[in-house]
């Protein structure tokens, strides 16, 4: 990995453009702000609700989407990826480096936010510290899975951002809620399943069990690495009408 540091460094610099970084920090801090808002208004924020709806369903996939598509996609789109391709580096190394950056950035934002939100919301159904940390790990795992999936997606198409949005909003938001049999095709459901394990909440319909959820996340990451590497090793420069 040491020899891949320059790759990681240049990806980090590319992704963390000044404006984008601040916007992502703002987006990530929303759960904390909302929890604070509710407490300031005298209400009792419900930890699991905030974490489930605002974090796992909204903020986490959005962050992973932005970082995931920026890590590889922005370089492919503006053409600077070519300088990474014409190097004696196996393509899957490149892919892994990009995924590492995207996943790490997502986790770096999402983990502390989860912990903070959990600590602030001490109303009904307050979470113990162990539960909060467990939840933070779950969110990190889910965010990493999303990030890897979106990095792989951006190796296939230049429209990864909008396709990823369609997946999150349409597939995970609408369809797999309606069609029970397809729940295992949803990273969100896997994350929610793991989260339910941590908090012990029972929902209807019942969340996916531990084994299934973990398997889904692992499969997503493995599949992303595999498919992304295959695609990247066959990378062809786009014609002028790209």
């Amino acid at each position, binding site marked *: 990995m040491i020899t891949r540091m320059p790759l990681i460094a240049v990806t980090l610099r590319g992704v963390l453009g000044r404006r984008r970084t601040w916007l992502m920090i703002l987006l990530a801090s929303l759960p904390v702000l909302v929890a604070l808002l509710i407490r300031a208004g005298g209400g009792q924020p419900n930890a699991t609700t905030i974490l489930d709806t605002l974090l796992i369903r909204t903020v986490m996939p959005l962050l992973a989407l932005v970082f995931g598509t920026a890590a590889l996609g922005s370089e492919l789109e503006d053409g600077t990826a070519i300088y990474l391709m014409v190097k004696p*580096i196996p393509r899957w190394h490149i892919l892994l480096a990009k995924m590492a950056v995207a996943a790490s950035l997502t986790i770096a934002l999402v983990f502390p936010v989860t912990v903070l939100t959990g600590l602030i919301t001490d109303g009904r159904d307050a979470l113990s510290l162990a539960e909060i940390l467990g939840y933070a790990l779950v969110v990190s795992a889910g965010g990493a899975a999303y990030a890897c999936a979106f990095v792989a997606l951006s190796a296939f198409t230049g429209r990864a951002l909008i396709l990823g949005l369609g997946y999150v909003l349409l597939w995970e938001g609408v369809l797999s809620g309606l069609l029970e049999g397809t729940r295992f095709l949803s990273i969100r459901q896997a994350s929610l399943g793991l989260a339910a394990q941590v908090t012990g909440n029972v929902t209807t319909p019942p969340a996916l069990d531990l084994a299934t959820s973990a398997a889904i996340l692992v499969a997503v990451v493995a599949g992303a690495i595999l498919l992304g590497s295959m695609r990247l090793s066959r990378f062809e420069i786009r014609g002028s009408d790209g």
Partner: protein
Amino acid sequence: MTTDRTVAGSPAELAAPGASIVVDHVSRWYGNVVAVNDISFSLSAGVTGLLGPNGAGKTTLLHLISGLLRPSAGGVTVAGVPAWRHPAMYRHVGLVPEREAVHGYLTAREFVLLNARLQGVVNAEAATQRVIATVELQDAADRPINTYSKGMRQRAKVAGALVHDPAVLLLDEPFNGMDPRQRLHMMGLLRGMAAAGRTILFSSHILEEVERMADSVLVIHAGRLAASGDFRSIRRLMTDRPHTFTIRSSDDRRLAAALLADPAVFGAELGDGKLSVRTADFEGFGRALPRLARVAGISLFEITPTDESLESVFSYLVRR
């Protein structure tokens, strides 16, 4: 030439027998559009110019050679390794693409350093320093590339491609945007590298550059290889097109009459102070002219082949 070597495979090893670039019946099509049509050639040490009008397929061919495009048919071998899907090949290859933007937020030094590190160059900082001095970017090396002029950007790209001392150098329209002094400097640099045993292939549609720099040319037109080799030899081969000579002599009119009697001569034209003669047989004419002039008692002052330029060769080839 340098003490900073790449981790493995120095140019000396590759200058060994065998060509550095072997293009074997390569074609590339996009649906119904054939961008490169059954091209074959092989290159070893020296400078070769890839010449062709815009849209001829020069960039596509360079991308095929640099492993950035998959050949629809045929194969490309660079430094003994197939170009497609063999990233290890890039240790010996430097590419200066035409179109691709560079990371604007990096300085030239950072960009070259990045390239050096990704190539695994031992002592990357020293190599970076050396190559930045070579392209004369020392003063601007610590400003972001998006503040550069076009010529400076070009030089930064070249620096990035040179830092690992590649045996094969591929350049797509490298002199674009360079002022004359930079161009001369770069030409000298490339010629020096070729003399040291490197294989350099550059594309251009500016004939003077190719004429000045290239030992041999590859003329490509509409995806096909129209001609290859030294352009003067190519001119000799164009036998269905008469050569034109411009002659100054003591009596143009009588010389013209004498020449027209010779079967090798197609035509003669008298201009102001000059005689233009068209002939099919370059060699034969060169021997016949002095003989005819002596017999007629005419003194020859100046004989110039007028369409031996790369330009005439080129325009002939692409108009066929």
